[in-house]
């Protein structure tokens, strides 16, 4: 009997406690109320071309939490944002669609968030950051305000400031999704020098040293992953003549190392992603060459 009462007590206790708090019901209204801000042409274009088809968002207005607090940054100009968005589609997205035969590849693997910043991210030593990627989700492109009408068809500028960064970061996502063969790492072996890369190599003023040691760029000497994506991003944005000139700038040994790495990169993209690097490069080059005829400002 006592046992019974005890059980009843416990039951009663729990039920009483539950009921006693029932007045705090959930507020039927969502706490996330979105303010309707009028949409402009660029908003519509991004939604149509990027969000609907690829599930990609472009943050072209400055949003502080998306930015890097370590730097003093300015927003992007509207006109530069329009140019970048159109160029990104033309030089960055469409070539992959064409080579892979569908929008699925970009939709599956391309970063979901692109963030535009107007100013470069200056460090206090005078150098600056051109782009960053975070966890395969987001790419931040800096110095958008340097993209003006008179620079808009300057291919070297566009690649150096934006597209090289974009392909570089995209390639990181791809190899993080499906890794490349470890034989790639063995070519340079102990040649990777981590953070000392910028002290030891300089590909602007002393390219031959970089090439002779088997690296396509100074940054490639940091580690194998960087090397891999630097190989990729340089190869697909350079003409065959430019590529040849670059890899012949140093020693024969260095050139052979780069070519051996290129073989692995080429095979990897063909086997894993069914992307023929040369076809992709031709597509990008053809588009670069046709830039003067490409309308960067209309959003229809």
């Amino acid at each position, binding site marked *: 009997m*006592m046992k019974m*009462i*005890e059980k009843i*007590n416990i039951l*009663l*206790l729990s039920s*009483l*406690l539950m009921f*006693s*708090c029932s*007045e*705090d019901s959930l*507020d039927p*209204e969502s*706490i*996330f*109320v979105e*303010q*309707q*801000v*009028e*949409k*402009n042409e660029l908003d519509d274009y991004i939604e149509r071309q990027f969000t609907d088809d690829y599930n990609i968002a472009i943050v*072209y*207005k*400055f*949003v*502080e*939490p998306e930015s890097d607090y370590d*730097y*003093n*940054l*300015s*927003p*992007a*100009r*509207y006109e*530069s944002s329009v140019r970048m968005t159109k160029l990104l589609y033309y030089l960055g997205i469409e070539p992959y669609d064409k080579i892979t035969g569908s929008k699925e590849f970009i939709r599956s693997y391309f970063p979901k968030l692109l963030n535009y910043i*107007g*100013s*470069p991210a*200056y*460090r*206090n030593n*005078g150098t*600056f950051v051109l782009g960053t990627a975070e966890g395969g989700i987001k790419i931040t492109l800096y110095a958008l*305000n340097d993209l003006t009408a008179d620079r808009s068809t300057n291919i070297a500028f566009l690649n150096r400031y934006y597209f090289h960064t974009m392909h570089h970061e995209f390639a990181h996502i791809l190899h993080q999704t499906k890794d490349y063969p470890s034989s790639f790492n063995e070519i340079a072996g102990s040649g990777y020098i981590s953070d000392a890369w910028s002290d030891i190599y300089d590909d602007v003023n002393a390219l031959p040293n970089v090439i002779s040691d088997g690296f396509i760029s100074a940054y490639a000497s940091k580690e194998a992953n960087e090397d891999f994506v630097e190989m990729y991003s340089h190869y697909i944005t350079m003409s065959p003549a430019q590529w040849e000139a670059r890899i012949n700038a140093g020693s024969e040994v260095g050139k052979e190392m780069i070519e051996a790495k290129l073989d692995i990169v080429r095979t990897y993209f063909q086997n894993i992603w069914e992307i023929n690097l040369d076809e992709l490069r031709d597509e990008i080059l053809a588009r670069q060459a046709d830039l003067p005829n490409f309308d960067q400002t209309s959003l229809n």
Partner: protein
Amino acid sequence: MKTKYIIFVFLFPILIITSCKRETDRIFEENATARMTEAIADAYKVLQSSETGWLMKYYPSEDLEFGGYTIFAKFISNGQVMLTSDINEDVITSTYGVIHDSGPVLTFNGYNDILHLFSEPGMDNGGHGADDTGMKGDFEFIVLKATADSVVLKGKKSGNEIVMLPLQNDLEVEANAFREGAEFFNYLPAFELENTKGERTFLNQSYNTLQDLSQMGTDLFSYRIVPNGLEFYKEHEVDGVKFSSMTFHEPTAEYPKGYLADESGKIKFVVISYPLNMWFEVNSWGFAYSKVGETGQYYWDLVKSRLDNDGLILNAFNIGYYYGYEALSFILQNGVVQGGVTYTITPVSGSKNRVTLAFGGSLLNLQNFTAAYWNNYVLSFHTPLNGRTFEITAIDTEDEPNEILLTDVANSDNTFQVVLGTVLNPFDN
């Protein structure tokens, strides 16, 4: 078992009573998000409510070392804003938003030359402030108060309080009045602070600030130029007199160039002639061989022999203002070759008669003046000038003299006596 039962019996009421007892009453009726949403909607409404637009008392940087500027803003929709200012006549439209952040935050999230000049890194803003931080201005502001008669903002980075007032007149009319005020004020050469006892101290001017640098710990007067005077960021106190603005007064016998005074008239910023170093900076001065000191003559002889070797003639050599630049400038070959190099002339802060000279690094080619003329012939002229500080002494009259003597503070043999304007054929004079 009985004890357990008893415990339960006593415990019930306590548990039931305490379980939902509110310790305090709610302070707000609505929950935080609902209030934030309302504040944002309200801010949007207020900003767009002034049809003429707003006058914004903008101060970049927490330390206020760049002074303040008046920005005029018209919020055209809930996404677009039109801006202009007292220092830039362009009217530029860009995006803005009021967002949910640390309170409702007004953000000018699209680049606009008018406002973002103050937030650009120094590398890109024409060299104002440090390379990475620039003028440290805000373009994101916490909305502290938004009503039809004023909007009070707080800069997210600087923490500066930025006040916006609705415009009474048309935006362009108001903006022009401020631009004219700025033009007038900036034309005034220099200032001295006059206290209640009539004592004066020189005020060093840098951007829109004035400060007495002769002693430590003096007030930095960080101001905006308003039509007919100055308005300060905060209230200042001199000799017990408190003031937060000053009005311009026309010249009198005692103040021949006019003065600014606070409301009581007890504290004045007296307009004075250019101190010698600023007078030197804003004019162009001609050199002559006979007026060059012992140190400089050696270098002048070097230049002379190089010119003679190639049969070139030097017609004039000047330092100072040159077609909008500060420069060393030359006329050669009877005027066929004209140009120079930029030269930074910096009045020493807190001093009226010291100036530092430094090679600016850019070639100024007015006519046929190629780098070869600088490198091969006249370069040695600048060796006794570059990176040195000179003390200026007036020769003819103390007030805006026509002839002055420059003496190197580190080497009394390094002197140059220069005259306002040009000396023809410097090697012969």
